C-alpha cells in the first residue's frame, strides 16, 4: 500500500522532568508499521540519544505505552496507519507519571499503588494442605477472571483525570487488581483489601468517567471493578455495624 517514498511527519516530545518540547522528524512509511517502529526508526537513524522503553513488542510486557496523538496507547501494537492525522502523528510520554527522559516515564508511583491497594496475595493455606479445587464457573471466579489479563501498562492510569487531580488516588489498574484478589477464593484477607481501597485515595474517588475502560488495550473494565469495590466496601460497612 504505502510506497517507500512516503514520509511520515512525526512529532516526538524531548526533555526530562525539568521540561521539554516537541521536535519534528521525518520517518519513511512502511507496511504494517507500528508507532513503536516509528520511534525506534528515529532512535536508530536520526538521533541515538532518544530514550524510550519497550521489551516484548507483542503486547505482553506493558512497558511501551505512550501518548499517541493525545491518547494513551500500547505503541508496539498500535498500527501507525490507524492513528495518522494526514501524515502526522505526535508521540509523548504517558500522562500522570514523572518523566525520566523523552518518552520514558518513571512507573514507580503506578506500581507502588498496586501494593498500597492491597494487591498482594494473602495466603489461605500452607504448602502442607491439599490444593483447593476452584470451580471456574463460579460467580466470584468469573468476576476475578475479568481482570487477570492486565499487563500493567499504565494506559488506564494515564487516561484517568481523577489521577491527575489527586496524586494519592490509587488509580484504575491497582483498584482492579484489588477487586480480582477480593473475588479470589484463595485469598484469605478480604477485609484488608477493602480497608486498603476505601481510604483517602481509594475507590470512592472515581467519578466513573470510564476513560480507563475505553483505552485499556486488553479491553478490561477497571470502571466496573471499581463499581464492584464501591459496593463491597459500602455493604461491608453495614455488615460490620450489626
Amino acid at each position, binding site marked *: 500500500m504505502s510506497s517507500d517514498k512516503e514520509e511520515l511527519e512525526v512529532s516526538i516530545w524531548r526533555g526530562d522532568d525539568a521540561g521539554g518540547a516537541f521536535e519534528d522528524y521525518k520517518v519513511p512509511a512502511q507496511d504494517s508499521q507500528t508507532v513503536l517502529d516509528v520511534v525506534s526508526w528515529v532512535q536508530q537513524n536520526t538521533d541515538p540519544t532518544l530514550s524510550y522503553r519497550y521489551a516484548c513488542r507483542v503486547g505482553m510486557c506493558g512497558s511501551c505505552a505512550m501518548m499517541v496523538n493525545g*491518547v494513551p496507547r500500547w505503541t508496539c501494537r498500535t498500527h501507525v496507519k490507524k492513528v495518522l492525522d494526514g501524515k502526522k502523528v505526535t508521540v509523548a510520554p504517558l500522562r500522570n507519571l514523572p518523566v525520566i527522559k523523552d518518552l520514558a516515564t518513571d512507573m514507580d508511583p503506578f506500581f507502588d499503588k498496586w501494593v498500597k491497594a492491597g494487591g498482594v496475595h494473602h495466603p489461605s493455606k500452607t504448602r502442607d494442605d491439599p490444593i483447593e479445587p476452584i470451580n471456574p464457573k463460579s460467580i466470584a471466579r468469573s468476576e476475578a477472571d475479568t481482570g487477570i489479563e492486565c499487563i500493567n501498562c499504565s494506559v488506564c492510569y494515564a487516561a484517568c*483525570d481523577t489521577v491527575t487531580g489527586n496524586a494519592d488516588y490509587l488509580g484504575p489498574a491497582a483498584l482492579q487488581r484489588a477487586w480480582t484478589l477480593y473475588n479470589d477464593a484463595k485469598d484469605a484477607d478480604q477485609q484488608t483489601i477493602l480497608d486498603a481501597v476505601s481510604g483517602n485515595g481509594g475507590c470512592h474517588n472515581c*467519578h*466513573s*468517567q470510564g*476513560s480507563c475502560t475505553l483505552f485499556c488495550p486488553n479491553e478490561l473494565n477497571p470502571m466496573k471493578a471499581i*463499581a464492584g469495590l*464501591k459496593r463491597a466496601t*459500602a455493604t461491608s460497612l453495614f455488615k460490620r455495624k450489626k
Partner: protein
Amino acid sequence: MIRPHRSHPLWFAFILHRLSGLGLALFLPAHFYLLSLALTAPESLDGYLALAENPLVKVAEFGLVFLLAVHFFGGLRLMAMEWLPWSGRQKSLAAGAVAAAFLVSGTFFLQAV
C-alpha cells in the same frame, strides 16, 4: 478544545453532571432567598413572580429544570451503576438520562408558554 483522551460519551456525561451540579448549587441560594420573601415581604415576591411571565425568564427556567433533570437522571444512572448488578450499556443509559431530561424540561417549557 477538549483534549483527545476526554472526547468520549462517558466523559461528557461526567462533565455534564459536574456542571449541572455546580449550576444547581449556585441557583439554590437565590431560589431559597426568593421563597423566603413569601414570609418576609410578600409584595416584593409578587413583583418577582410577575417577572416569570417574561419569555427570557421562561427560557432560563427551562434551563434550570433541564439542569435538575439531567443531574437527577444522571445521578440515578451512577447510583444504579454502583449498587445494582453491572450493566454494559452505560453509554446508552447516559444518553437515556439526557433524553429523559429533555423530555421533562421540554414538557415543562411547553406547559409554561
